[in-house]
């Protein structure tokens, strides 16, 4: 019986997939696992290379091929449909887990059982490294204390990244499915849905970074990102309103900052300035705080 299904969406990057698979092979956790890769309509050459990578791996891998490029949310829903192990974890092709990730997260689950908590209402996230091209890895702490819904909307202390997670299949059913309207930020919507449905994120006692995210904004449309934020804010408007108008303005200001970063990293400097200006208009205090923070980080 497979205990853990590892879910990987893949598109046109077989060498990135190889890197991720290697990090799964190196896990210290000894339970039985299966990797499910949904290839989202990669070009023929890349698909062939992907098949080679899978053949060469010692892991138990199931490859599901989409005949056309459906986009990330639909691919993730396909992965959910294919999974049937009692536990699920996610990884994006190109990102890696450090060797103790899954064991540390399972230990956290056992600890939850020991405390008498319901494992089906918890997701185990973890601290991670954030690596921009040409820069050193930077550790990012996931802080699970406090109002998690609030923290997810702002995303400064608790961030919505699927590849940090381990949980029971039932816990993932709590968040339902990925919103197929969201070409970007479907993780954020998924996390918010989970917490709104009574779910809670916890972190393992191992406070080291347990995975690494190789970050790139290149080729990602800033306006699309900002549009996805709007969709999420509209969808979860009732939850946002509960925190009051000041908080809503803060969440919008943060969204503008993220869109500004994407625009800047794609050399759309005018657009980047416009988003920043908008962020200042929405919440000047928060905008100043962000500006100070980015100056401190260089």
């Amino acid at each position, binding site marked *: 019986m497979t205990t853990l299904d590892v879910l990987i969406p893949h598109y046109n990057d077989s060498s990135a997939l190889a890197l991720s698979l290697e990090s799964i092979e190196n896990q*210290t956790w000894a*339970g039985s696992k299966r990797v499910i890769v949904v290839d989202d309509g990669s070009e023929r050459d890349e698909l062939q290379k992907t098949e080679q990578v899978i053949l060469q791996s010692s892991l138990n891998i199931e490859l599901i091929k989409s005949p056309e490029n459906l986009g990330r949310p639909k691919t993730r829903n396909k992965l959910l449909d294919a999974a049937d192990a009692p536990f699920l974890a996610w990884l994006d092709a190109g990102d890696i887990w450090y060797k103790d990730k899954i064991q540390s997260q399972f*230990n*956290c689950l*056992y*600890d939850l059982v*020991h405390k*008498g908590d319901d494992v089906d209402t918890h997701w185990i996230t973890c601290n991670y490294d954030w690596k921009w091209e040409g820069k050193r890895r930077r550790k990012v702490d996931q802080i699970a204390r406090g109002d998690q819904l609030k923290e997810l909307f702002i995303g400064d202390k608790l961030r919505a990244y699927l590849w940090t997670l381990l949980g029971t299949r039932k816990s993932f059913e709590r968040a339902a499915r990925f919103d197929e309207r969201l070409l970007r930020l479907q993780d954020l919507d998924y996390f918010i849905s989970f917490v709104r449905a009574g779910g809670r994120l916890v972190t393992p006692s191992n406070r080291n970074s347990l995975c690494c995210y190789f970050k790139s904004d290149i080729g990602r449309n800033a306006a699309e990102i900002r549009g996805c934020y709007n969709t999420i804010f509209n969808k979860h408007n009732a939850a946002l309103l509960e925190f009051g108008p000041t908080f809503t303005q803060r969440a919008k200001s943060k969204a503008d900052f993220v869109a500004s970063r994407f625009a800047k990293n794609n050399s759309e400097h005018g657009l980047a300035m416009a988003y920043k200006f908008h962020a200042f208009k929405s919440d000047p205090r928060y905008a100043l705080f962000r500006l100070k923070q980015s100056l401190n980080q260089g």
Partner: protein
Amino acid sequence: MKIAVLLGSFDLLNPSMLDAEAFQHIFGQEYQFFKMPWATGKRDQTYNNALLSNEDSRLINAAGYAMKYDFADDKIPLLVFVDAQISDVVSCLKMLRKGANCETLNVTLLSLRSNTTYAASEATKAAAQELVTASIQGVAFTAPMTVTVEDLAALDVQHLVRKNLKIRDISTKLRDALERRGMTMSPDIARKKIMRILRRMTEEGMLVAKDKHEIFADELAAAMMQDLTQFLEKG
């Protein structure tokens, strides 16, 4: 779900001689000593007697859950109970089955037999037989398996001797390194310190290579001196 249980008296199951590695050596790689690094306050316990306490039924429940999911298909979790009451073992097995949420818990009873500790060996065998005859719903016992070791003190001679030599060698080098820095440490304390550090490292899957004992001891001495300096500065 399959598990293995080893019962015995302290004379036979002495933690100073028998650790997780030694058990695997005696009973084979198929059996893997069950540990609970996730359980607060229980992570450093050598054997599994914490599971026999009636005070924490959730711990047994969680252990059953962990056993079900933490092991490869070809590995069997091995539980070691020292000087255990059979009634406690029976209730523990019932709870483990509940925690693992399995229809049948298949238990292999293991016994150790040693010519040098005859009385203890016989007691182990008797305890295993008593447990087999206990009727527990949802728990099936396979025929007890007895492994005879000629001399328990010489058990896994290579393994133990190698381990002891390593501890002795590194602790001597640590004392030398400290002495070079103007500090002395008794051989007994140095040995205990190294034993503790190596045990922790083994748990983390780390080993000190044979040709690196000197460097390791030197780094350790430097770190100890630094700790001491900081402590004195604070005080």
